C-alpha cells in the first residue's frame, strides 16, 4: 500500500478538476458535486490510513525510517538542476549537483499530517455539502477545496523543500480563492487580498531560507539536508551562523503562514469566508503548515539557540495578545479566530522550548476541537439564519441539541479539562516550558502561557454562555438582523440605519443562495431595497426561531467531538506513569514514541532512537544533564527549583498539572460568572476598565498602524516614483522626440527646396530639349513604323555580313 501514497494528493486534485472544469459547463447537480468531492477525499483518507498502517504497524513496517516513493513508487525528475557550490568563503569550491525530484515521503511526521488533513478534511467536506447548500457557486467551492487539499498534501508529503514550497504557495492561493469566495462583497475581497499579501511577506523569508539551504547543503531533499546538518556545531545565543540565518528565514515564513505576531492580521479578517473554509484552512490545516515546517527542520532550529528563544517568545506573545483580544469580541467566528491565533502561539511556544513532539501533538488535538468548534459555529449560524453576533443568541441549547453537546465537548477540550484531548497537550506544553534546558527564560514562557490559558478558558466559557445558555435574546427588539452595522448601532445606541460597517467579517442577512450585495451606507438606499416597515427606527421582523442542522452537518460534528474527547490519549504523559506503567504508554501508538525518530537530540547529536523516548526534563537523581551542558547555562529553571524543594520529579509534574487545571477552572468560573449568572456585570466592568476594553475591542489598533506605517507610506513612495517617471523620464523621451521632429523638418525643407529643385530644373531642361524630337517620332502612322522596322532589319543583316562586305570592298 505504501507504493500508492502518490494517489493521496492526486485524488482530491482530480475531484477538484472535475468539479471546477465541468461543474458549471455540464451543470452538475449539487449531489454529484458533493459526491465527487467527498468521495475523492474519502478515498484519499482510506489510502492514507492503509498506508500509515502498513508503514508503522504492518508486516514490513518501515517505521522509523522514512519511506520515499522514489524507492519503488512514483517519482520523477522535476527540476534537472545544475551545479551548486556548497563551500563558501575561503575554501575551494565544491560543487554538488542539484536535481530536484518530485517524490513523496512517508515518515512519522508526514503520516500524522496526512491523517489529520484527510480525516478532518473529510468531516469538513461532508459538513460543507450541507452548509453550502443552495449556493450558486457550489461547484467552485468544492473545486477550490479540492485544490487546497492537493496543495496541503503536497506540502506535508513532499520529500524536499521545493515541494513544500509548492504546497505552501498552493495553500496560500487556495486561501485567497476561498476567503474571497463571496467575491462580490468588498470586505471578503479585501480580506482575501490581505491574507495573500501577508502570506507573501512570510513566503519571502521562506524562499530566502530555501536558497540558504540549497547553498549550504547542496541539496533540497530532507534526507540529504538533515543528514548533513546533524554534524554542524550548535550556535548558542550570541553566536549567529548560517544555520541561524536559515532558521530565521524559515520562521518568518512560519509567522506569515501560521499568523504569529506581527503577521497575524490576516486571520481574523479571513472569517469573511464561508465557515467550512475557516474550519479547514484557518483552524486545522493551513495554519499548521508553519508548525509542520518548523518541526520538519527541527535539526536546523535546534542548532540555533537564539532562534529557539525567538520562536518561544513570539509564540508566547502571540498567545497572550490574541487571547486578550478574544475576550471582548462579539462575533462568534472572530472569537474562534483569535482563539486559533492564540493556540498557534502555544504550539510555537512548544517548539521554541524544544518540545517539537508536543507541538505536533497540540496541532493534532487543536485540529480536532477547533474544527469541531468552527463547524459548530457554522451550525449555529446556519440555524440562526446567518446571525453571527453572539449578543443576539442565547439559550440555543434547547433548539440545537446536537450542536450544543458536540460544542461542549470542544469547549471542555480547549479549556484543558482532564481527560479531554486539550488537557494532555496543553499541560505538556506548559510543563516543557517550565522545565526546558534549551533556552533561558523558560519560566516567562510558562507564566505567559498559563495566563493565556486562563484567558482561553474565560472567553470560551463566555462564548458558551452567550450562545447556548442563558436568556434567549434572538426574539427581542431589533433582533434577527445579522448586520454588523446593526450591531455597531446597538453598541452606540443609534438607530440601526445610521450605522455604517467598518470592519470585515460578517455576512449580511441573506438566505443562502440569494445574491449577496454590497453594504449600504446610504440610508435611503437601504430602506428602499430592503423595504422595511418601521416606526422610529425600530425594525419589525418576523421572529426567526433557530432550528437544528440537517444530519449532513451534525454527523461530522459528532465524529469530531468523539475525536476531541478521546484523541488526547495518544499522548498520555510521563506524569501518569504510575497508572500506565510506562513513560509513554501505547508503544508506537504513543505520539512521542512515534515522532521521536525525526527529532534531533542535541546531546547525542543524532536523531532519537525509537526505543526509550528521551525526557525533555533531566532527572534530578541521575546527573545526566547532557542537554543542559549542550546549551550552556540557561539561567533560572522553574521546574528545577520546584523539584529541588520537593525532591520528586513526579510530584513536581503533578504540581504543574494542578496549577494548569486550577487556572482553567478559574477562567471557566469567571466566564460563567460574568456571562451566565451576572450578565449585567460585564457591561459595568467594561465601562470601568474602558481604556483596556477599547484597546482589546479594537485589536490594539494594529491594522490601523499597519495601514499608516506600511500601506500609506508604500503608496506615497509609489506616487513619488510615478511622478519622477512621468516628469523626468518621460520628459526626456518626449524632449528627444521633439528634437527629432525639429531636425526632420529642417532636413525636409532642404530636401524639398534644394535637392528637388535641382532635379526638377535638370529634368525640365532635358524635356524642353528632347521632347519635340521624340514627339515627332510618334506619328501614329503605321507605315512610318514599318519603314523603321525594315531599316532596322537591313542594318541587322548588314552587320551579320559585315566581314564579307568589308572583304569585298577592299
Amino acid at each position, binding site marked *: 500500500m505504501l507504493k500508492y501514497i502518490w494517489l493521496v494528493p492526486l485524488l482530491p486534485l482530480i475531484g477538484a478538476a472535475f468539479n471546477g472544469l465541468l461543474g458549471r459547463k455540464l451543470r452538475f447537480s449539487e449531489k454529484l458535486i458533493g459526491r465527487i468531492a467527498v468521495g475523492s477525499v474519502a478515498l484519499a483518507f482510506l489510502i492514507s490510513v492503509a498506508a500509515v498502517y502498513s508503514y508503522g504497524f504492518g508486516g514490513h513496517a518501515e517505521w522509523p525510517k522514512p519511506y520515499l516513493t522514489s524507492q519503488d513508487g512514483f517519482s520523477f525528475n522535476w527540476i534537472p538542476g545544475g551545479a551548486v557550490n556548497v563551500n563558501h568563503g575561503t575554501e575551494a569550491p565544491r560543487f554538488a549537483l542539484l536535481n530536484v525530484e518530485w517524490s513523496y515521503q512517508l515518515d512519522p511526521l508526514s503520516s500524522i499530517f496526512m491523517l489529520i488533513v484527510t480525516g478532518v478534511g473529510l468531516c469538513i467536506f461532508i459538513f460543507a455539502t450541507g452548509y453550502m447548500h443552495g449556493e450558486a457557486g457550489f461547484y467552485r467551492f468544492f473545486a477550490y477545496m479540492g485544490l487546497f487539499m492537493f496543495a496541503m498534501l503536497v506540502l506535508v508529503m513532499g520529500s524536499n523543500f521545493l515541494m513544500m514550497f509548492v504546497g505552501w504557495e498552493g495553500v496560500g492561493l487556495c486561501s485567497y480563492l476561498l476567503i474571497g469566495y463571496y467575491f462580490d462583497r468588498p470586505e471578503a475581497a479585501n480580506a482575501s487580498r490581505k491574507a495573500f499579501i501577508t502570506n507573501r511577506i512570510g513566503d519571502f523569508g521562506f524562499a530566502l531560507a530555501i536558497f540558504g539551504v540549497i547553498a549550504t547543503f547542496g541539496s533540497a531533499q530532507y534526507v540529504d539536508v538533515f543528514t548533513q546538518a546533524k554534524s554542524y556545531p550548535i550556535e548558542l545565543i550570541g553566536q549567529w551562523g548560517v544555520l541561524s540565518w536559515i532558521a530565521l528565514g524559515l520562521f518568518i515564513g512560519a509567522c506569515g503562514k501560521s499568523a504569529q505576531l506581527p503577521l497575524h492580521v490576516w486571520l481574523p479578517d479571513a472569517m469573511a469566508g464561508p465557515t467550512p473554509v475557516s474550519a479547514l484552512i484557518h483552524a486545522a490545516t493551513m495554519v499548521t503548515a508553519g508548525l509542520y515546517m518548523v518541526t520538519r527542520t527541527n535539526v536546523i532550529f535546534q542548532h540555533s539557540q537564539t532562534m529557539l528563544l525567538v520562536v518561544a517568545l513570539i509564540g508566547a506573545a502571540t498567545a497572550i495578545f490574541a487571547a486578550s483580544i478574544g475576550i471582548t469580541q462579539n462575533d462568534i467566528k472572530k472569537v474562534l479566530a483569535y482563539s486559533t491565533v492564540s493556540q498557534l502561539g502555544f504550539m510555537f511556544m512548544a517548539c521554541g522550548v524544544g518540545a517539537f513532539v508536543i507541538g505536533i501533538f497540540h496541532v493534532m488535538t487543536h485540529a480536532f476541537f477547533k474544527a469541531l468548534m468552527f463547524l459548530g459555529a457554522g451550525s449555529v449560524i446556519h440555524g440562526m439564519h446567518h446571525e453571527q453576533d453572539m449578543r443576539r443568541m442565547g439559550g440555543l441549547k434547547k433548539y440545537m441539541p446536537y450542536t450544543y453537546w458536540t460544542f461542549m465537548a470542544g469547549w471542555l477540550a480547549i479549556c484543558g479539562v482532564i481527560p479531554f484531548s486539550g488537557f494532555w497537550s496543553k499541560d505538556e506544553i506548559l510543563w516543557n516550558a517550565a522545565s526546558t534546558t534549551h533556552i533561558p527564560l523558560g519560566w516567562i514562557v510558562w507564566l505567559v502561557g498559563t495566563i493565556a490559558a486562563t484567558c482561553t478558558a474565560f472567553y470560551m466559557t463566555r462564548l458558551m454562555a452567550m450562545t447556548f445558555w442563558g436568556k434567549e435574546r434572538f426574539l427581542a427588539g431589533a433582533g434577527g438582523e445579522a448586520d454588523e452595522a446593526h450591531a455597531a448601532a446597538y453598541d452606540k445606541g443609534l438607530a440601526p440605519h445610521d450605522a455604517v460597517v467598518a470592519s470585515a467579517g460578517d455576512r449580511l442577512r441573506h438566505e443562502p443562495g440569494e445574491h449577496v450585495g454590497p453594504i449600504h451606507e446610504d440610508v435611503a438606499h437601504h430602506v428602499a431595497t430592503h423595504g422595511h416597515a418601521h416606526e422610529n427606527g425600530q425594525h419589525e421582523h418576523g421572529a426567526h426561531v433557530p432550528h437544528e442542522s440537517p444530519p449532513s452537518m451534525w454527523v461530522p460534528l459528532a465524529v469530531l467531538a468523539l475525536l476531541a474527547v478521546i484523541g488526547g490519549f495518544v499522548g498520555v504523559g510521563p506524569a501518569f506513569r504510575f497508572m500506565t506503567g510506562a513513560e509513554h504508554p501505547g508503544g508506537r501508538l504513543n505520539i512521542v514514541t512515534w515522532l521521536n525518530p525525526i527529532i534531533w537530540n542535541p546531546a547525542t547529536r543524532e536523531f532519537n532512537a525509537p526505543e526509550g523516548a528521551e525526557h525533555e526534563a533531566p532527572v534530578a537523581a541521575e546527573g545526566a544533564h547532557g542537554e543542559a551542558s549542550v546549551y550552556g547555562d540557561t539561567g533560572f529553571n522553574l521546574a528545577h527549583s520546584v523539584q529541588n524543594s520537593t525532591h520528586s520529579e513526579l510530584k513536581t509534574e503533578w504540581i504543574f498539572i494542578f496549577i494548569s487545571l486550577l487556572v482553567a477552572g478559574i477562567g471557566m468560573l469567571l466566564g460563567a460568572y460574568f456571562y451566565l449568572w451576572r450578565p449585567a456585570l460585564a457591561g459595568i466592568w467594561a465601562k470601568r476598565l474602558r481604556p483596556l476594553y477599547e484597546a482589546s475591542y479594537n485589536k490594539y489598533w494594529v491594522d490601523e498602524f499597519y495601514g499608516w506605517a506600511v500601506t500609506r507610506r508604500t503608496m506615497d513612495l509609489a506616487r513619488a516614483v510615478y511622478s519622477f517617471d512621468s516628469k523626468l523620464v518621460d520628459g526626456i523621451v518626449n524632449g528627444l522626440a521633439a528634437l527629432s521632429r525639429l531636425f526632420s523638418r529642417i532636413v525636409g525643407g532642404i530636401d524639398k527646396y534644394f535637392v528637388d529643385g535641382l532635379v526638377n530644373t535638370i529634368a525640365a531642361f532635358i524635356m524642353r530639349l528632347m521632347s519635340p524630337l521624340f514627339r515627332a517620332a510618334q506619328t501614329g502612322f503605321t*507605315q*512610318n513604323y514599318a*519603314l523603321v522596322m*525594315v531599316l532596322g532589319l*537591313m542594318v541587322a543583316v548588314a552587320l551579320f555580313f559585315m566581314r564579307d562586305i568589308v572583304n569585298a570592298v577592299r
Partner: protein
Amino acid sequence: MVLFLFVIMLVNVGAEERGRDEIFNNQRQVTASLIFCLLLVAGVLYAVNKGYGGLQARNKIPPDVASAQETVRDQSLPKSATGSSSITKDSETLAASLYRFASLPFEIASVLLLVAIIGSVMLARTLRQEASADDVDPEVLQVEMARDPDLAKLEPQSD
C-alpha cells in the same frame, strides 16, 4: 486572291477609279521608302552576284551537265494518258517528305488555319450579329441600345 477581289469590291474602290484621292502617302514617307528600296536593289543584286560565284565554285555537278542529266531523266518518265506530257515524280517526292518528316508541322499548320478561320469570323462580326448571339457586355449593350433600339429585338429570349 479571289477573296481579295471581293473585299476590294466591298470597300471603297471608287476612290481609286475617280482618281480624286491620293493613292500614295505623304511625300516624306514615299521619298524615304524609294531611297531605301533603291539601296535594297543595289545591295541585293550585288549580293546575288557575289554569292552565286562562290556557290558555283562548290558545284558538284556543273550546271549544263546537270541540265543534260535532267533532260535524260525527263525522257525516262512515264507518259500521261494523252501522251502530251510525262508524269513527273515531283509531287511524289514532295509528299514522301512532307507527310513523313514534316507531319508535325503539317498538323500544326492545319490547326493554325483553323484558328485563323475562327479568329477572322469573330473579328468581322457586326454588333447586331454579336447581340443576337448574346456576346456583348451588358454595359456596352446598354450604351448601344440607346443608340440603336432595334438591338433589343435581337436578344435571345432567356428562360
